């Protein structure tokens, strides 16, 4: 199996896209989590702060008896502790605090969020803590974290698959061009092998014959060089189909122009040409491609015609039909005639190089035209459907 550079490029693109999108996604969900968490903590901290604030006001008030502190109303899920530093007495409501050292501000202790402050009443120092059990909240945050993680993972995987698929589409035009080039190179190297052999063989013979009686060999070489010239031009043409400028092209005019160019060959065989123009056909295409398409079909109709034969061209809105008299094409060979270098019979002259109908097919394929061949015993008919 040949190493496929496109598969490699696809993998690279896929990995790059996935990596970047996973990075962005992770950052995104990470920040969602972080901000949400901060928001929740902030709300709860506010609540605790206001409790401590109220309590400390009460504690500061000399008129308030400390035992009354227990009657202060606080929300059910919060608790309060007041620690008399001098007397080492703990007053608490809802839940005992286990805090041993003093701190001021917020602290998370186990599942609890605690806000603490210190107040002096006379000579006595009070530490006031208000706390709240956040275990439910933390559990739901944990859940959120998990959800975000799975989501990130799933979306990243989705992007991986998606980018593998999309990379094919991104690369397909490049791949097409590349394959075309490669095919061209292969064709050139393949198709030039036989003519090269002809030249080298003839040169060998010329040398062996000591440059005597070499007229035929020189002729062989010059014929082959002409053939190679045509071949390279045709191959180059095939490789450039569809890369040229497109505009509306009048098919009727093209056919008439090609007929006039081919008229010497038509007269030589004394062929009767009938042109039936039922409609004016205009196609969005490259002028050169269309000229080649129809000139090749017409040349074919001339080349494989009987002397004094007939060519009937019918131009309709969606189709052009080119019918010619001549030896009927074998049913089993109908598909083969579009193959490169195929010739139905071997009474070949050096003209053309067997690429005529192959070029027709390449052009038709490029423009999505359909080519149909009908053989009825009298006529061979080529129909181009736009």
């Amino acid at each position, binding site marked *: 199996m040949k190493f496929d550079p496109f598969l490699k490029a696809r993998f690279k693109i896929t990995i790059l896209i996935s990596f970047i999108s996973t990075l962005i996604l992770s950052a995104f969900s990470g920040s969602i989590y972080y901000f949400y968490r901060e928001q929740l903590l902030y709300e709860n901290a506010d609540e605790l702060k206001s409790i401590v604030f109220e309590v400390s006001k009460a504690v500061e008030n000399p008129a308030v008896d400390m035992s009354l502190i227990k009657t202060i109303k606080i929300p059910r899920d919060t608790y309060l502790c007041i620690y008399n530093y001098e007397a080492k007495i703990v007053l608490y409501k809802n839940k005992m605090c286990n805090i041993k050292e003093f701190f001021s501000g917020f602290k998370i202790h186990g599942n609890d969020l605690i806000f603490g402050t210190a107040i002096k009443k006379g000579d006595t120092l009070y530490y006031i803590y208000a706390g709240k059990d956040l275990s439910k909240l933390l559990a739901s945050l944990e859940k959120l974290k998990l959800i975000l993680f799975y989501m990130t993972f799933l979306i990243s995987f989705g992007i991986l698959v998606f980018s593998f698929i999309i990379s094919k589409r991104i690369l397909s035009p490049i791949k097409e061009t590349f394959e075309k080039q490669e095919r061209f190179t292969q064709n050139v190297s393949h198709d030039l092998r036989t003519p090269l052999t002809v030249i080298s063989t003839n040169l060998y013979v010329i040398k062996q014959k000591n440059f005597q009686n070499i007229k035929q*060999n020189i002729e062989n070489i010059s014929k082959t060089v002409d053939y190679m010239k045509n071949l390279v031009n045709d191959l180059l043409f095939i490789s450039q189909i569809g890369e040229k400028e497109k505009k509306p092209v009048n098919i009727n005019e093209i056919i008439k122009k090609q007929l006039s160019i081919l008229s010497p060959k038509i007269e030589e065989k004394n062929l009767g040409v009938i042109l039936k123009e039922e409609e004016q056909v205009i196609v969005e295409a490259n002028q050169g491609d269309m000229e080649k398409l129809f000139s090749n079909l017409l040349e074919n109709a001339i080349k494989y015609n009987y002397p004094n034969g007939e060519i009937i061209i019918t131009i309709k809105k969606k189709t052009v039909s080119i019918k010619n008299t001549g030896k009927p094409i074998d049913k089993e060979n109908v598909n083969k005639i579009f193959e490169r270098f195929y010739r139905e019979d071997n009474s070949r002259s*050096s003209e053309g190089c067997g690429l005529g109908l192959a070029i027709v097919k390449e052009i038709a394929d490029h423009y999505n035209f359909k080519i149909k061949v009908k053989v009825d015993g009298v006529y061979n008919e080529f129909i181009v459907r736009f």
Partner: protein
Amino acid sequence: MKILVVEDNKELNNTLKEILELNGYLVDTVYDGEQALEYIDAFDYDLIILDIMLPKIDGFQVCKIIREKGINTPVLMLTAKDAVADRVKGLDIGADDYLVKPFDIEELLARVRALIRRASVEKSNIVKIGDITVDLEKREVYKDGKSLMITPKLFCILEQLIRNRGKVVSYESLMNKCWDITDYPSRETVRANIKLLRKILQDKDIIHNVSGVGYKIE
């Protein structure tokens, strides 16, 4: 030695014929697979040079068909395709050798010689018969160290007898291998040439008559 060249490129076909003829072979040429099969059926060849890309019936098919018919003539395939799969296919189907275009003529000639040698009874290129030495590659005959003048036709007859040393070579076989069909050779022609050959070799006992059938060299 008679060779059939099957190649659809006219120029190459004609040049191969010319070059092989310059090297002392008798050559028939055909341009497609169908003709090739007709020729192979009708005549006896020492070697078939067969192109793969042919009109009507391709080279692989031709090779397959003749092998199925039991014809063991050596086949040298020519192709423009350099793919290993193609080479393997050709050899599997019964081709004896394989040359990729563009090939070197010297190599082609060497392979032609090798294939013919492989098919013949006499395996070496330099053969001694009594006091006569025959160099099948240089196409020369020596007696007592001196080179003998010999025409291509007579050398062809001698070569056929040497290649099939110990076996009887029939009149028909000699006519087939050493004369063009358009020459219309008869047994009388063969007899006359054998007589001439014996005279040149200055030895009557090298070539034995096998009456009514042909000749042989022991």
